[in-house]
């Protein structure tokens, strides 16, 4: 029983981190048909800048805010410099975002050094609670809560505000949104920056969770996020949450029971979805 709960919590925590990364990816894709292969780079930058901010300020809150700010700024630069020039050309987009991924992760090594860094859990969140036989690691619970809060906030924005309405409409039919007098490129820039901020948030939360951070983590984690985006349906925000939890749980249970297959399972999941239901399990296009 306690094993089950532990695996569940592990899976949920990982799932939430993947969700934060995938949420931006899915909206960016849904809105503009841009698959950002550099998204993992923003994640890694979030992790490194967060650890740096934490080291300097000794405040985890400031570390999180600093990481998000870094992500948003990098998102702005990415959109303006990398995405806009090749707008509308898929092949070039794929090629260029991957190129930018290389640059982002190498820049990381230039700024923070080529070696992996250790990341500490803030004292308030370290340790665990014991409830009966069940041990709940505080930090993991913290990640899960943050994940749900972010989901709630974004869901509120999407459902209840004008900009959210525009984003949802844009995912369905961007030509029409423009014909109604909305500058979709401007909206897209905001969405891109928000997505980058979420990726960075995911990175900074990931750091104490895994204990060490390294430049390549961006690409490794981004692959999971891609899987989630595909399974959840491109452009579907709730879909990406469900798929992320699915992938997180599958990973945590497989890692315990059949460790050799843990990564393979998710990839196979994606392959199956892509082949049989390429629009994903949930679909945002109405």
């Amino acid at each position: 029983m306690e094993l089950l709960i532990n695996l569940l919590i592990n899976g949920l925590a990982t799932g939430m981190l993947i969700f934060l990364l995938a949420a931006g990816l899915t909206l960016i894709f849904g809105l503009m048909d841009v698959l950002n292969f550099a998204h993992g780079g923003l994640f890694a930058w979030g992790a490194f800048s967060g650890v740096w901010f934490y080291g300097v300020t000794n405040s985890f809150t400031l570390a999180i805010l600093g990481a998000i700010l870094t992500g948003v700024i990098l998102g702005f630069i990415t959109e303006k410099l990398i995405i806009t020039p090749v707008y509308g050309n898929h092949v070039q987009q794929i090629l260029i975002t991957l190129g930018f991924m290389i640059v982002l992760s190498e820049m990381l090594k230039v700024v923070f050094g080529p070696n992996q860094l250790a990341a500490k859990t803030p004292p308030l969140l370290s340790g665990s609670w014991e409830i009966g036989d069940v041990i709940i690691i505080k930090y993991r619970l913290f990640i899960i809560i943050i994940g749900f809060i972010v989901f709630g906030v974004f869901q509120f924005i999407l459902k209840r505000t004008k900009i959210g309405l525009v984003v949802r409409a844009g995912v369905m039919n961007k030509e029409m949104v423009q014909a109604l007098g909305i500058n979709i490129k401007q909206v897209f820039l905001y969405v891109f920056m928000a997505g980058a901020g979420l990726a960075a948030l995911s990175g900074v939360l990931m750091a104490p969770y895994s204990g060490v951070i390294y430049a390549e983590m961006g690409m490794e984690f981004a692959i999971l996020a891609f899987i989630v985006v595909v399974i959840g349906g491109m452009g579907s925000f709730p879909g990406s949450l469900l798929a992320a939890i699915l992938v997180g749980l599958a990973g945590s249970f497989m890692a315990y029971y059949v460790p050799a297959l843990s990564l393979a399972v998710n990839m196979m999941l994606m392959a199956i979805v892509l082949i049989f239901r390429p629009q994903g399990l949930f679909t945002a296009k109405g």
Partner: protein
Amino acid sequence: MKSTFQVSKIILFAIVVALAIFPFVSDSRTWTILLTQIFIFSILAMSYDILLGYTGIVSFGHAMFFGMGAYATAIMLDRFEPTIGIFVLSIAVGMCIAGIISFLVGLLTLRLKSHFFAMLTMAVSGLFLVLAEKWRTLTFGNDGFTFKAPEIFKDRMMYYLLVLGCLVLVYLLLRRFVDSPLGRVLIAVRENEQRTKSLGFQTLHYKVIASVVAGVIASLAGSLYAVSLRFVNTSVLTMDITLDALLMTIIGGVGTLIGPIIGAGVIELAQHYLSGLAKEHPIFERWIIFFGIVYILAVIFFPKGIVGTVKHLFWKRKNPIKIAISSKRKGIAK
């Protein structure tokens, strides 16, 4: 036009002869090894060009075929005798495996839109990497293993000549391939898949053929690579290999075959010098940043790469009118 063709053929021939004579005149071991490396990556990059440049599909999983060749050859030379016969056989085995896998993967995935295809190839290739890391009894995982190469390749020069021979052979074969009616259809797919389809071509079949050809050739490059190092580990299956092929093809010039060769030369040489400079300033340890930036600029401003751009300029001087049409049609497919 005809005379330009002849001239470029003669120039190519002269370059090949010069390269063949090179090891007899120079006894620089570094250069022999470096050039061997360039030739091997030229083969890999050309195979990638068949996909990206000629068919207009972006694969992020090309490393898996390279890795298959490398492992096939390394494992067979290690388990059996390190003889020429086994070497040749292992290349054939690697090519067969790569052919079968690329056929199956292609059949399943090539009907998907470009993004999904790129992602799925990345994932499948990742799967092979995981497989190689976990199947330690066969591959020794990330630690890898060393093995003996056939006796005759102890002489670096012999191996250099063999690889050069392979490069020339592959170039000629692929040139034939892209100039054949089949190759024309591939270009049509790149330019406008929908239209090619409506003309009655089963575009999926042609894309699968392209991916099999590319996979098989990449496997050959992998086999040659393994023997040149006499060592193999999982790095042959990593994204880095795919990225190398991608950089070389884009920087050299997509859809030209010669471009990827030049790209391979430029990148390997620059890598050699830049990492040499690392002793003077640590920024050069991160030489790949320069390529990343050059690559991004190339995608935005020179999507035709070195060869394409030079050709374009050359042609512009000769045919100022036709250029308007060609600039629309060439470059990377939409």
